[in-house]
């Protein structure tokens, strides 16, 4: 098949699936809908593989396929095409999206089996995949933005999928509105780049990016990239716009796995990696990104420690892991950021699906205080979840270890990095190990606190198969990016495949020096050691010494309360932004709208109405009155003529 046909099929397949399920949702059963949607995504997955193979056949520095389906907007200097670009980066991204997406579709068939709206659910899911592909493949910021908004819409629809529950519906709205703030900034960033460069094509922008870094805070590139980054903080749930992601857990669990862990929330990271030459040209922006990323890592991780909802823990974990990706972007380690994006997609999708399996088994119970000892009932879920756990805490040999340590190492070593960024990263890794072990201990290990009325049961094979595949990927996914220092001691000296693959489109960090192996090993040892200690502590505390935990919590109750209530960030936003805004709007409504604008319009309306009824009374069919008007008119005209 030609490349154009491949890309058309890649994009069209989920869209057709969306149309079929959307328009015929009342006509077929849930399993049929699920099968249609899964096949649609699987076709896309095959296309992605085919495109990836096509790229392999091209020379190393020219691995890009650009397909243009014609002109979309052509106004003045603005030319936007329906152009889709498959290069080293986007080819991997579509593999992740369609591959993980397919597995999650499969899982959903089992998970959403009982739901009456299952066809609608699959229609939304396919709609999401389509938009995500547009986002990833779009060759200009405008096309990217179309996908960006499309996935936002899909996310809103799926978070509020059970919209009869008011809390869930408002969680969807919260996600949508918070994202809208970021999107406004994203648009401003686009405007800035368009006015200064005259194009929004990503390849052209990257080519135009200066090689000399811009040192001011108000330079065009710094401002533009800062606004794009604010857009990314909305979509990728970073400080200060992360508040929507934990609430987004109101949606069905596979949705959390697909949209709010593996794919959509990484769009911000992807965008930055894609435009890396521009971001590298603005070191001040990079500093902001690194600091925001590092702060998000520890703040989200600390909140994750005290949450009791299995999905909330994973949600804060996602925010925290996204923080690592931004930290990596901020220090110029774009390859590491993308590497972590990929491994995180595997192990976090695995853990979310695992939590879905647990929730399914526990009959929609999400509170980990009412679980415990589930290992006995859910052996396979436990096994796969444990692999995810080992990956995320950075156990050597698992995928998370490679990507996280790459990020930590570069945040120390890169000229754009700093030891304090490394410190925050390691602190975050320690906390990650703690809350994840706590989650494992409270859910699967220790004594059972399951209520007598609940009888947990292992999930069906269609839900377990995706778990196995993702577990396997969580183990081996890291071996595509073995760091140089580890590769050097392994037999055969394996190279960093990912870095080689992405090399031609990612600019190296300016001024980076040759690494000292001893330093790297030491830092690696410190972070792994701390994670190990922290996991062991959490394991002991939450399986054997629950009273000690309670006693300690009592002692630091105010701090615990503060963290448990998420540092009162939501309250702050409500108190200082949302409520004042609502009050101002109410006053504007009551005084300006009702008393002034409404009055004016009513007055104008009354005037016309009164005038109309007066004129109507003149035309009453009375012949003699008409004659009188003629006479009066004559008199008036004569008077006028004679007075002149």
């Amino acid at each position: 098949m030609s490349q154009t046909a491949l890309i058309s099929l890649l994009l069209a397949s989920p869209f057709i699936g969306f149309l079929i399920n959307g328009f015929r949702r009342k006509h077929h059963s849930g399993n049929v809908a699920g099968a249609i949607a899964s096949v649609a995504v699987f076709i896309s997955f095959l296309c992605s593989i085919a495109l990836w193979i096509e790229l392999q056949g091209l020379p190393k520095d020219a691995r890009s396929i650009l397909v243009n389906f014609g002109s979309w907007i052509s106004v003045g200097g603005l030319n936007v095409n329906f152009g889709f670009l498959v290069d080293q980066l986007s080819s991997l991204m579509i593999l992740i999206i369609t591959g993980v997406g397919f597995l999650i579709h499969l899982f959903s068939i089992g998970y959403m089996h009982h739901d009456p709206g299952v066809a609608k659910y699959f229609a939304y899911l396919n709609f999401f995949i389509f938009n995500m592909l547009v986002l990833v493949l779009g060759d200009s910021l405008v096309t990217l933005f179309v996908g960006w908004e499309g996935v936002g819409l899909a996310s809103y629809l799926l978070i509020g999928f059970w919209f009869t529950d008011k809390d869930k519906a408002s969680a969807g709205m919260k996600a949508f509105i918070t994202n809208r703030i970021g999107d406004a900034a994203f648009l401003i960033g686009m405007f800035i780049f368009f006015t200064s460069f005259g194009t929004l094509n990503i390849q052209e922008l990257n080519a135009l990016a200066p090689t000399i870094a811009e040192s001011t805070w108000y330079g065009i590139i710094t401002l533009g990239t800062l606004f794009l980054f604010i857009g990314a903080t909305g979509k990728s749930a970073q400080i200060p716009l992360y508040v929507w992601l934990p609430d987004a857990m109101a949606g069905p669990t596979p949705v959390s796995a697909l949209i709010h862990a593996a794919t959509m929330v990484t769009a911000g990271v992807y965008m930055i990696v894609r435009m890396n030459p521009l971001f590298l040209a603005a070191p001040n922006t990079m500093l902001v990104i690194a600091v925001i990323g590092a702060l998000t890592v520890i703040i989200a991780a600390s909140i994750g420690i005290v949450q009791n909802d299995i999905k909330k823990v994973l949600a804060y974990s996602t925010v925290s892991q996204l923080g690592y990706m931004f930290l990596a972007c901020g220090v110029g380690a774009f390859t590491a950021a993308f590497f972590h994006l990929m491994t995180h997609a595997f192990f976090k999708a695995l853990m979310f699906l695992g939590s879905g399996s647990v929730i399914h088994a526990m009959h929609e119970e999400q509170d980990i205080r009412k679980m415990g000892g589930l290992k006995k009932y859910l052996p396979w879920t436990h096994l796969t979840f444990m692999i995810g756990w080992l990956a995320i805490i950075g156990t050597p040999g698992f995928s998370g270890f490679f990507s996280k340590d790459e990020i930590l190492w570069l945040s120390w070593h890169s000229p754009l990095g700093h030891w304090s960024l490394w410190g925050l990263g390691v602190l975050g890794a320690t906390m990650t190990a703690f809350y994840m072990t706590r989650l494992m201990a409270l859910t699967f290990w220790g004594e059972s606190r399951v209520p007598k009325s609940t009888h947990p049961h292992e999930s069906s094979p269609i839900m377990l198969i995706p778990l196995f595949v993702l577990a396997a990927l969580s183990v081996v996914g890291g071996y595509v990016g073995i760091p140089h220092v580890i590769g050097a001691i392994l037999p055969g000296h394996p190279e960093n495949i990912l870095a080689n693959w992405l090399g031609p489109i990612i600019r190296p960090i300016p001024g980076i020096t040759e690494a000292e192996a001893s330093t790297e090993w030491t830092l690696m040892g410190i972070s792994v050691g701390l994670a190990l200690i922290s996991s062991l502590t959490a394991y002991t505390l939450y399986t054997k010494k629950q009273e000690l935990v309670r006693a300690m919590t009592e002692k630091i109750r105010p701090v615990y309360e503060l963290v448990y209530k998420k540092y009162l960030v939501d309250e702050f936003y409500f108190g200082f932004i949302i409520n004042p805004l609502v009050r101002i709007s109410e006053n504007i409504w009551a005084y300006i709208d009702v008393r002034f604008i409404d009055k004016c319009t009513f007055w104008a309306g009354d005037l016309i109405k009164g005038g109309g009824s007066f004129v109507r009374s003149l035309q009453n069919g009375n012949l003699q009155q008409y004659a009188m008007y003629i006479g009066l008119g004559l008199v008036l005209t004569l008077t006028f003529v004679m007075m002149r």
Partner: protein
Amino acid sequence: MDSVSSEGLSLITNVGLNHYLVLSTALFCLGLIGVLLRRNAIVMLMSIELMLNAVNISFIAFGKYNNNIDGQIMVFFVMTIAAAEAAVGLALAVSIFKRFKEVNIRFFEHLRG
């Protein structure tokens, strides 16, 4: 006014354009008032005749004093129209009378659809 009363001939020679116009206006206004105020269709028709003839007077007066024949020709047209109008109007009045035993103008309201 002394000369008018003392000498009969000067009465005619002293009649100028203005006199005719005043007469014409007076007749026109009488006719107009008749049209506006009377309810009897026949009286209204007569009032219209009055207005038309008032106009005729001024036509002829102007024609005479401007030594122009056009005014008098115009009068023939007006008289023709007046005759036609009277014929139609009287026909209407007759049909109204046949129906309502009266020719009050308000019965024409029944023509409204």
